[in-house]
């Protein structure tokens, strides 16, 4: 295996690890807001590391750019998604874990 392949495999494994962490977080965290936190880790780092790992080994610049574009879209969407869902949850009356709801 060439060093580049090793590096790419390392990124892929790290990405998969973050995806696993996110899934475990969504399963185990106590309330909606904590689970949102886990979700954004998958969006940002999980997919990001997988994309970087694949881009390192991609056959052309266009492919690598398209991969990064996919990640960029997910990043943007994730930033807004997280805020929007959290706000919707708050308005629906989900109580943050261990805290008190603002009057």
């Amino acid at each position, binding site marked *: 295996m060439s060093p580049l392949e090793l590096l790419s495999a390392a990124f892929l494994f790290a990405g998969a690890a973050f995806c696993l962490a996110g899934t475990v977080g969504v399963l185990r965290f106590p309330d909606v807001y904590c689970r949102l936190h886990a979700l954004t880790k998958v969006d940002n780092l999980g997919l990001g590391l997988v994309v970087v790992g694949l881009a390192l080994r991609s056959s052309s610049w266009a492919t690598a750019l398209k991969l990064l574009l996919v990640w960029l*879209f997910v990043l*943007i969407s994730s930033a*807004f998604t997280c*805020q*929007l869902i959290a*706000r919707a949850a708050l308005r629906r009356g989900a109580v943050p874990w261990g805290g008190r709801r603002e009057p």
Partner: protein
Amino acid sequence: MDGLLDGCLALCLPLLAYLVLRTESLSQAVVLFVAFGLLSALGWARLEAPDIALVEAAVGTGLTGALLMHTLSWTEETPPDVRARARRRPWALLAMAALTLLLGWAVLALPADSPGLGLEVDARREDSGVKHPVTAVLLNFRGYDTLLEIAVLLVAALGARAVNPRSERASSEAAKDPLTGELFRMMTPALLLVAGYLVWVGDHGPGGAFQAGAILAGGGVVAILTSRMGTPRMSSLRVRWALLTGPLLFIGVAVAPLFSGGRLLEFPEKYAGTLIFIVEMALTVTIAMVLLMFFPGTRPPRTGRGSAR
């Protein structure tokens, strides 16, 4: 590894389909349906059918998920007593079993080693003006199917507006929300870019008017849901033109060869590629508008409903 992946998908899909049907809460069913659409797109991807995976991603999951989610706000969350009804109707079970058997028989009766029409399409692809066989079939070899399909879509849009004729104007109140405003602002260029790319890529790979139209409609849906844009009104001239550009142009291109001694939908080989591209561009606008027509605005306030009946 490939076997494991395929086997897992084959197990997950029926499981999710069962969960969607079994769930009594409508909102839960919608969430599960979105997950089901995602997995079925993966399934199509594994079956070497990227064209269908793309349509599933754009129309089947992206837009339908949003439409179902939005429809929830128009419905009352009162699940019918499904179980009691199922107990009363054993013949439903029988009919389902019969349908399953029929479908299974139909699948098994298919010729197993038939090459299909793929070889013929490949042989004549040079004449079609495009390099991707699916686009060649859809817009050249069997163009009349697509033409009629567009007509069906127009009728569907008319039906959707007939069921819910009310439309609302953009409100400046809701448009002030900075979050969705910024999201819409950042999404729009990306949507336009990808829609254009999908039409362009249809020439030599999976892509085309349906997918591009769905992407454009996605932007429109965000605009409608955040009250940035009113729901499209049938009375508006612009909406009518958007709905008619695709079909009119397609019919024009289809009829034109008749005047020069050709047959209906017989594209001259030299211009076939360009003509298909132009038709796809126009169809994209029409399809986006048709899909937008399916999105109703906000539901009228609940208080007035009881007295109205």
